[in-house]
């Protein structure tokens, strides 16, 4: 009961606002608020009052409009960037060096022998069809050939190209399901469909494979006299051997066709070789890295970490930071950088696999996987290549400021490169994504990428259709888009900007002794085993300004937002948060007034009704006295807001309002408002 009383009293006190009508309340608010405009409204003369009223309204709407803009700005999460350039002691980048050629030819020759004989014979037939020397050598392994054959496309008749097999076999490519794929424009997503999108002026050509008699050799291509090339090489890819679902990957150049074909075939062969065997076939560190000097400290091949890279065989990484601390470099200039002498032994290159000779090298961050095909550069044999390095860093803020990932954990692609213990990168993500798709669709993994668990690499025997499947997947725009969409870039993007310059090395005068010493050091014999076509000198060093860091910071913080909001409110109306609270108070008060009015109105209604019911009964004194007391708040026990229905149907006049004093001039407001604070 006590509590109820207390509540009622509290409510009553609350109810006792600065006024009992809206007008009073407003006048009181205007006079006492801390915002600047309203005070003017009541203090000025009537015309100025109007002016001030509109001004206040205008300013209030301005404030709200500007607040909207500010909040919008805040929610757009802008960033500001700051740039710093200079020299500081920095971690020397990890340097990966590889040979452009993955394996020593002398080592892989037994594996690739058949393949080489095939391609040589094929080239013989294509290039010199007339004098096809009858094979005295052992017969070619046509089984291998037929898995992924090369075909010649005769385009004498543009609308009706004839497909010629290079070796006469009983295989005739018949059927309408073949198509020639010659385009680089996008929409050949499914290679099995019938459209050939020829990108350019040429109309859509469809190669209707004509059943051709197995005549001797293909006609001599050299006879063509006109400018237009009449023969093209293509790689025939079938979903499985002997099936009709074949596609011809057409090449404008025979050189490319041969290379592509060779890569496909050799991939299939090499994928069956176990990893340690492949490592053995590649270039060994002691053969490749002849001399090493970091700053003034000597280093040797043992300072390099070996990693097997599918494209380039054995690669060696200096300063990878996996086992030991990364080296720092605190001085600019070539004297304080890394100096390497490499031997790529060009004579031992696989002839058909890699046509460019040189070392492949790449600078990258510690603990990241080197993606040489993307970021690597070449160094030419017989030259000294100097590389000045500028570290270009971009440090970004993560979500919600930009859509990047800090460590790749929030990317929905399984990172296959994590088996190397390397950090996330977008390249790793894209490749993992591709490999995952490949495993999903083709059932085996591609040789160039790491394997997910429990999957083997593709080869011709186990997965006869893999080349077809891989080709279609590789050229599928959709697949790429899926990978691009699911991979995110890292927030900290570090690039090594290189300034590359080259000179001939060794000079003719110094050539002899340099080769002698280097050969001697390698195998302790006096035979010179090196020549100009193999040695490469590399200098990698920091430039005078070795870093350029762009770091982001939030342009709009909550502090910024608050001070801007306050600034706007203050600028237009001189207001603050307290003014908002004041305003809220006024709203509560007006709600109270409304409630009281409603109560009063209801009471009045009931009384009128009661009076109508008893039109003659005069009010007794006690009734009148009761009418003066506030029934709603004193007699009615339950609830703050007594509902109209619960009120007793008391007859009588509405209670006189105490504050009818308000009719007097405004100075009565002073004492009135003072009374509130009691």
């Amino acid at each position, binding site marked *: 009961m006590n509590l109820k009383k207390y509540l009622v009293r509290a409510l009553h006190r609350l109810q006792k606002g600065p006024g009992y009508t809206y007008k009073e309340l407003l006048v009181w608010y205007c006079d006492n608020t801390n915002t600047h405009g309203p005070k003017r409204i009541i203090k000025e003369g009537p015309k100025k009052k109007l002016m001030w009223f509109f001004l206040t309204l205008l300013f209030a709407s301005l404030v709200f409009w500007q607040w909207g803009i500010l909040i919008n700005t805040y929610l757009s999460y802008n960033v500001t960037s700051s740039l710093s350039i200079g020299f500081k002691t920095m971690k020397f980048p990890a340097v990966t060096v590889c040979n452009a050629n993955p394996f020593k*030819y002398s080592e892989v020759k037994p594996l690739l022998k058949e393949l080489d004989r095939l391609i040589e014979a094929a080239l013989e037939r294509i290039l010199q069809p007339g004098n096809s020397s009858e094979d005295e050598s052992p017969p070619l392994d046509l089984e291998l050939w037929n898995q992924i054959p090369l075909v010649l496309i005769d385009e004498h008749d543009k609308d009706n190209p004839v497909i010629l097999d290079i070796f006469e076999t009983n295989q005739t490519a018949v059927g309408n399901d073949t198509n020639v794929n010659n385009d680089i424009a996008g929409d050949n997503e499914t290679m099995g469909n019938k459209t050939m999108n020829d990108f350019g002026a040429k109309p859509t050509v469809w190669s209707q494979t004509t059943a051709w008699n197995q005549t001797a050799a293909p006609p001599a291509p050299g006879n063509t006299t006109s400018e237009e090339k009449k023969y093209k090489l293509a790689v025939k890819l079938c979903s499985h051997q002997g099936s009709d679902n074949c596609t011809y*990957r057409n090449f404008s150049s025979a050189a490319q066709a041969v290379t592509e074909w060779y890569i496909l075939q050799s991939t299939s062969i090499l994928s069956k070789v176990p990893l340690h065997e492949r490592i053995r076939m590649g270039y060994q560190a002691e053969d490749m890295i002849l001399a090493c000097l970091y700053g003034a400290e000597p280093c040797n091949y043992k300072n390099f970490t070996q990693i097997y890279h599918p494209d380039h065989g054995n690669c060696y990484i200096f300063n990878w930071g996996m086992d030991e601390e990364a080296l720092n470099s605190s001085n600019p200039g070539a004297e304080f950088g890394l100096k390497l002498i490499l031997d790529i032994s060009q004579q031992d290159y696989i002839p058909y696999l890699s046509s460019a000779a040189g070392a492949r090298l790449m600078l990258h961050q510690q603990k990241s996987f080197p993606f040489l095909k993307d970021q690597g550069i070449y160094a030419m044999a017989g030259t000294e290549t100097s590389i000045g390095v500028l570290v270009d860093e971009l440090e970004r803020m993560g979500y919600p400021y930009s859509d990047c990932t800090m460590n790749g954990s929030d990317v929905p692609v399984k990172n296959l490169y994590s088996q190397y213990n390397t950090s996330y990168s977008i390249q790793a993500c894209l490749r993992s994504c591709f490999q995952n798709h490949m495993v999903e669709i083709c059932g085996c993994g591609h040789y160039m990428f790491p394997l997910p668990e429990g999957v083997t690499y593709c080869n011709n025997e186990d997965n006869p259709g893999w080349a077809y499947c891989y080709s279609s997947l590789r050229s599928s725009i959709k697949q*790429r888009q899926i990978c691009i969409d699911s991979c995110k870039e890292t927030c900290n993007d570090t690039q090594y900007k290189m300034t590359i310059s080259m000179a001939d090395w060794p000079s003719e005068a110094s050539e002899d002794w340099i080769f002698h010493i280097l050969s001697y050091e390698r195998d302790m014999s006096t035979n010179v085993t090196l020549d100009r076509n193999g040695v490469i000198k590399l200098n990698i060093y920091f430039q005078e300004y070795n870093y350029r860091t762009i770091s982001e910071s939030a342009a709009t913080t909550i502090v910024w937002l608050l001070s801007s909001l306050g600034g706007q409110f203050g600028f237009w109306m001189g207001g603050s948060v307290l003014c908002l609270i004041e305003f809220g108070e006024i709203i509560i008060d007006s709600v109270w007034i409304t409630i009281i009015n409603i109560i009063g109105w209801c009471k009045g209604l009931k009384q009128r009704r009661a009076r109508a019911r008893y039109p003659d009964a005069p009010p007794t004194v006690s009734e009148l006295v009761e009418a003066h007391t506030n029934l709603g708040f004193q007699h009615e026990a339950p609830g703050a807001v007594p509902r109209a229905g619960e009120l007793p149907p008391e007859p009588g006049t509405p209670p006189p309002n105490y504050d009818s004093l308000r009719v007097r001039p405004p100075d009565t407001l002073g004492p009135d408002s003072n009374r509130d604070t009691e």
Partner: protein
Amino acid sequence: MAQPSPEGGRAAPAGPGKKITARLKRTLPVRGPQAPTLSELMRWYCLNTNTHGCRRIVVSRGRLRRLLWIVLTLSAVGLILWQCAELLMNYYSASVSVTVQFQKLPFPAVTICNINPYKYSAMKEYLSELDKETKKALETFYGFSEGKSKVRRSVDDWNSTGSDFFQHIPLLKVEDFSRTATDLHTGQKRKIEGSVFHKDSSIVNSGDSNNIIGFQLCDANNSSDCALYTFSSGVNAIQEWYKLHYMNIMAQIPLETKEKLSYSADDLLLTCFFDGLSCDKRHFTRFHHPLHGNCYTFNSGENGTILSTSTGGSEYGLQVVLYIDEAEYNPFLVTSSGAKIIVHDQNEYPFIEDIGTEIEPAAATSIGMHFTRSRKLSKPYSDCTETGADIPVENLYNKSYSLQICLHSCFQKAMVDSCGCAQYAQPLPAGAEYCNYKKNPNWMYCYYRLHEKFVKEQLGCQQICKDACSFKEWALTTSIAQWPSIVSEDWMLRVLSWDKGQKLNKKLNKTDLANLMVFYKDLNERFISENPANTLVILLSNFGGQLGLWMSCSVVCVIEIVEVFFIDSLSIVLRRQWQKAKKWWRNRQQGGPGKAPQAGDPERQGHDNPVCIDEDLPTFTTALRLPLPQNSPLPRTPPPNYSTLHLETAFTEQLPDTLELDRH
């Protein structure tokens, strides 16, 4: 509200004027000052203003304290003004933001040119005379001859068929600085007049003056106005001289012929591979460059589609094998062999001669790209142009604006204006034609003079041309590997020869071939953009912050200040003056015409607004709606309000004005 104005003592205007005044009084919103005198006004202001500080001055007791508050208030005002000025001055500053986006990137246009512009064998008929002349010069000056008999014969030929414009600008050998030179043809020594220009500045006064070789350009109209161009090395001199005549000859050949003389796409491109798929010459657009002949642009976007790559790495970029064909090189025009490429946007003009990258033959050049897009804010943040439309130089190139285009166009325009013909290396403006000796014998001299002015920034081109606000940049990392490798050389050359479709017995030479790979290193696009550091919203909130911090002031206060300090004060001052004037007038009328009129008063009268003055006082009282104490019918008086008391005193003090009027 508008009370009937009491009849003023001054000469009342005529009927209609009075009516207008009355109406004005009624409609004028501003009803005059809040107080009759300036000090009262200030007091009123200080007590009623919304700004802090001011009130303290009035309220505080004690002189020291009041002084302190005055100083504080004033310094707050000063701080506000200073800070706001600072804010205003920094308004047009820009902040830079760098965004990186990983996405499918549009592949840029790649323009590839052979360094040698035209096939030498095809050019024979146009250049034979010039070549003969050059060979003769080589023989006379340096004793060089390749195959004596051939040269001898050609010299004989020259005498019969030689045209005369080589005589206009012969190669000269300068004996020494006594300014005599040996003419190539006549062998005569002749006096050199005019100024000596050194193309190589380092040779000035070099001891061995016998080796100096050069050529002289004269103004055709005024043969005494000559300029001698000398070079420290004969290599430079011969090449420069050759180029001069070469341009002259080429300017006369129509474009179609030139295109035929140059390499076709089949000649230049042996293989092409893009994004893992084969491509051919149809993906290349021909582009004729005046100095480099036929160039081919891959992915020029001419057929409406721009190729894009969705994977980085060398396999997915553009790979081409170029046929350089060194046998067709012009021995005097180009001395290096290889190709030139430039990576540019589809809308950009490829300035191959300025910013091309050279490609070595017998090597694989791998070019990794990194894409950066930049955007500057244009006026008023920085002085750059969005489209080039606001630059008074006509864009002669059919491409989007760039600084380079502007400079070249500007020079070409100056050339046409002052020399009457256009320079060969740049496009033609409307109605102009290329310079050649037949029509413009004078152009060479004019060109050199103009070019010198251009380089010294005397033509004003550098001032007119602005840089473009947005530009795309492909940062290239170029590296070279040996290609083909020793072991693959054999089959590679055989197959490429077959590709070329030549006779089988003719094998290509590896020095005639160049392998080029252009690819994206990664698909990260860096976008560097400038953003306005301030917007109006932020400026205003900063203002508000400053005003609020120092004085709790707002726009309302500013309006108050304007009202009180300008409108009200002014009207008070004016009224004072008006009253003074009236008093003086009365005095003069009373005291006779002896007194001279005081200065300023007649003028003041013109400024005076009688409407404001007359009506103010009654309005003031009514505006406050304060019941006069004696009229108050209430039994209990309201508690005395301090401010009311002030106002009442103000009211009583105000009366002299009204009284005066009434008295009159």
